[in-house]
């Protein structure tokens, strides 16, 4: 099954690759077929098909035209798990002389196949105007439009001296501000423009700009960075604004902004001397060929000087709290008829262009008939075009103390308009409210209970040691605890001893189970001791049958002990065997051997003889037995 799946997978992969090459469609188009000398013509080469990773096609040599590659645009569509992509390569053609020209077919290589475009005929007339020395050639705007188009003051002195990492003037970055002199808290737009003649990929900041003293808002960049072709010092560059920051100076003074370092990677490829499109053989800011060899570059734009003017004191209204920009104000109340101690919420909305986050709530006038609380504050920031703006709303709760007619007074909000260079004061309307009598005391409205702003903050007003402990802990639990601790310690000791004993027993049992002779040898002495105690009890009786029994048992006990000790059969051992074994261990001349043999003879006599045996003989028998045990145990050692 797995094998089948794998083969199916391989088939799909190869089939798809085959289909990829088959479904490709390549077309070429121009935005106009007739133009004047020096007027730009845009040439688009569109490649449609499955997912592709293509190099920009090289244009055929055209002596009557200057040609520039201006970038690519990719569109990928996913349908039912499959994807199609359209890639459009853009070129700018600038005719150098009049006449009728044929743009030969352009060859696009997809996989191993080459797809040619249809030839295009172009008509070029004589020029009516000169091409400016420094001009953008962006497709959308007119040719002579100054750079940058969206800047209010494209300050020429802001143009950077060419930053040439490793003396390379084919790529540099320009950091510039839209105005050199601003008021405190007025927006300054800081833009980073990258100029390049390479296939370049923007990697981000290597070193962030140092902008202490400024409130910063960053503009999100478009997914596809806009770019345009531009001529600087006679060379054509692709220019793109890679970063935009809105700066709001917090205090007046002269500032030096360190713009930081930008990191880019450029594709290392030999540059053709006369074909500009070779410099931009692939995408700009879109990645390019994955396997192309790239080199990282650090671009350091020069520092920027900025003068921040203080806000004028003349005409500064009392309600001014630092807002700079252009704003509007509106206000609403949630009800105009309430009971005593019932809250009315005034919602004040301020919107406009400027640093909306730093706007404070308009000051409340001194109110005697109301309790007031700040209930909520919301702000929304918008970044439209190159301007930061938004709305900020404040909710203020007014709780009327007295019945009758009352007014929520107008709230004044002032801001400084830098365009008009004057202060502007706005006011909310005067809201009349009717307060009915109520005996209900003040309670926090249910819908306000969750809002922390409504409640007063608990603040630590001083520091001191915490109060003394006035109770001693109960001694009994402590003593019981101590007792339990000691008991547990002794218990552990006891359990440890038991465990060691059990472990020893267990180990002995394991040994004995493997060697029965060892068990007999090791237990012989304890068995003999038990037998001696039993014999001593029997010996106390003077009855004839007990005497008989005593000697029978004595013989058995002695025989068993010696049989266990020397691993002889208890029941099969004969007197002769015992005599030989004893003679071997004690020596045949040993007096104790004679005593033992005498004892055995006495046992026989008691069993078979008719005469009575004196009581002393029993004691002597036990003694011989004990001596035998002691002697044999010593021998073992």
């Amino acid at each position, binding site marked *: 099954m797995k094998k089948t799946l794998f083969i199916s997978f391989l088939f799909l992969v190869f089939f798809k690759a085959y289909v990829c090459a088959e479904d490709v469609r390549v077309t070429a188009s121009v935005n106009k077929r007739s133009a004047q000398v020096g007027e730009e013509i845009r040439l688009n080469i569109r490649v449609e098909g499955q997912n592709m990773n293509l190099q920009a096609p090289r244009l055929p040599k055209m002596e009557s035209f200057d040609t520039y590659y201006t970038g690519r645009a990719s569109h990928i569509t996913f349908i039912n798990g499959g994807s199609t992509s359209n890639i459009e390569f853009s070129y700018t053609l600038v005719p150098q002389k009049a006449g009728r020209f044929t743009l030969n077919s352009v060859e696009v290589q997809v996989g191993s196949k080459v797809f040619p475009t249809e030839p295009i005929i172009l008509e070029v007339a004589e020029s009516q105007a000169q091409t400016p020395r420094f001009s953008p050639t962006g497709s959308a705007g007119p040719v002579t439009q100054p750079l940058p188009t969206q800047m209010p003051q494209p300050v020429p002195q802001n143009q950077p001296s060419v930053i040439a990492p490793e003396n390379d003037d084919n790529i540099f970055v320009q950091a510039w501000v839209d105005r050199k002199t601003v008021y405190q808290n007025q927006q300054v737009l800081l833009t980073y423009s990258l100029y390049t003649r390479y296939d370049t990929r923007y990697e981000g900041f290597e070193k962030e700009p140092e902008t202490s003293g400024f409130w910063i808002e960053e503009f999100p960049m478009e997914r596809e960075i806009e770019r345009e072709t531009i001529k600087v010092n006679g060379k054509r560059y692709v220019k793109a604004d890679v970063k935009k920051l809105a700066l709001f100076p917090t205090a007046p003074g002269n500032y030096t902004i360190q713009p930081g370092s930008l990191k880019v990677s450029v594709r290392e490829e030999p540059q053709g001397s006369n074909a500009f499109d070779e410099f931009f053989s692939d995408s700009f800011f879109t990645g390019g060929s994955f396997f192309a060899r790239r080199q990282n570059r650090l671009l350091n734009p020069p520092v920027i000087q900025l003068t921040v003017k203080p806000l004028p004191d003349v005409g500064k209204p009392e309600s001014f709290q630092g807002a700079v920009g252009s704003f509007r104000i509106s206000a609403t109340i949630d009800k105009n008829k309430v009971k005593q101690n019932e809250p009315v919420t005034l919602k004040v909305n301020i919107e406009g262009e400027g640093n909306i986050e730093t706007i404070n709530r308009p000051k409340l006038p001194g109110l005697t008939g109301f309790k007031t609380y700040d209930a909520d504050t919301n702000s929304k920031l918008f970044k439209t075009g190159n301007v930061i703006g938004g709305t900020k709303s404040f909710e203020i709760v007014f709780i009327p103390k007295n019945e009758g007619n009352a007014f929520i007074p107008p709230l004044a909000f002032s801001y400084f308009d830098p365009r008009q260079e004057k202060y502007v004061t706005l006011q909310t309307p005067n809201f009349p409210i009717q307060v009915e009598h109520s005996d209900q005391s003040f309670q926090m409205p249910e819908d306000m209970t969750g809002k922390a702003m409504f409640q007063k903050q608990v603040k630590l007003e001083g520091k001191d*040691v915490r*109060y*003394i402990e*006035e109770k*001693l802990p109960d001694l*009994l639990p402590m003593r019981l605890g101590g007792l339990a*601790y000691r008991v547990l310690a002794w218990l552990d000791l006891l359990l440890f001893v*038991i465990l060691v004993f*059990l472990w020893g027993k267990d180990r002995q049992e394991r040994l004995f189970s493997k060697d029965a002779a060892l068990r007999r040898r090791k237990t012989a002495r304890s068995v003999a001791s038990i037998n001696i105690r039993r014999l001593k009890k029997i010996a106390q009786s003077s009855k004839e049958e007990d005497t008989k029994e005593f000697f029978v048992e004595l013989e058995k006990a002695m025989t068993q002990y010696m049989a266990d000790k020397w691993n002889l059969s208890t029941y099969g051992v004969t007197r002769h065997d015992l005599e030989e074994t004893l003679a071997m261990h004690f020596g045949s001349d040993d007096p104790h051997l004679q005593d033992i043999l005498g004892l055995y003879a006495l046992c026989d006599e008691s069993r078979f003889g008719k005469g009575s045996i004196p009581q002393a003989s029993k004691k002597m028998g036990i003694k011989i037995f004990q001596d035998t045990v002691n002697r044999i145990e010593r021998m073992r050692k």
Partner: protein
Amino acid sequence: MRRFFVLLFGLCCMPVALGATADIKSAFQEANTSYRTGDYAKAAAQYENLVQQNIHFSAIYYDLGNTYVRLGHLSKAILNFEKALRLDPRNNDIRHNLSYTRGLLEYRVEDSRNWYLKASEHILKYITEEEINSVVLGVIFVFLVGGIFGFVTGRGSFWSAWQRFVFIMLLSVGLVAFGKQVQSNLIRDAIVMQKECEARYGPSEHDQVAFRMGEGIKVFVVDRREDWSRVLLTNGDSGWVKNTDIAEVKI
């Protein structure tokens, strides 16, 4: 029978012990009354009297520390708060007052020890020696009972999975107990009691002054001579100070 008499004797002694407690409580309340009425000097003497009777309660040390704060004797206050914390390490009031009193000191020492030393000290300070020893004994008990159970039931497998687990537990708590033992008995911390204390490069007046400290600074005693102690600060500096200039935090 003999055990019964031992138990009976113990029960007879208990009321005597409880009677002694009543005296302690009465003396403690008297000291508290002196504190409440603002007679801090008298309160301090009464609390000290209890301490000298070998009555060791965190509450007594804590109240004594508070009293010394009121009297402006910050080093004595810190010493007593440290002692109280040894007996009741998780008491937030003691920690707060100790921190507050340290904030009143003239001198401050940076703690430049490694993070793991700080962390282990912090953790070990949340438990008493008795508590961790009890836990160790409890785990030993479980381990021994498990072992005996294995032999008695004839399973014969002393080193079962359960026993291994308990053994790992035992090693873990044993390690903590070892750390606590080191902290309590080997690392002897002390408080500088003099308004200004000179730490020297050697244990004599002839040696050069290494640094000066103010009262209330916590030091670690690493060596002892007849009249001098070598102390280590949390910033890594060390020097010899007179024994009379410091007081060890021991109960």
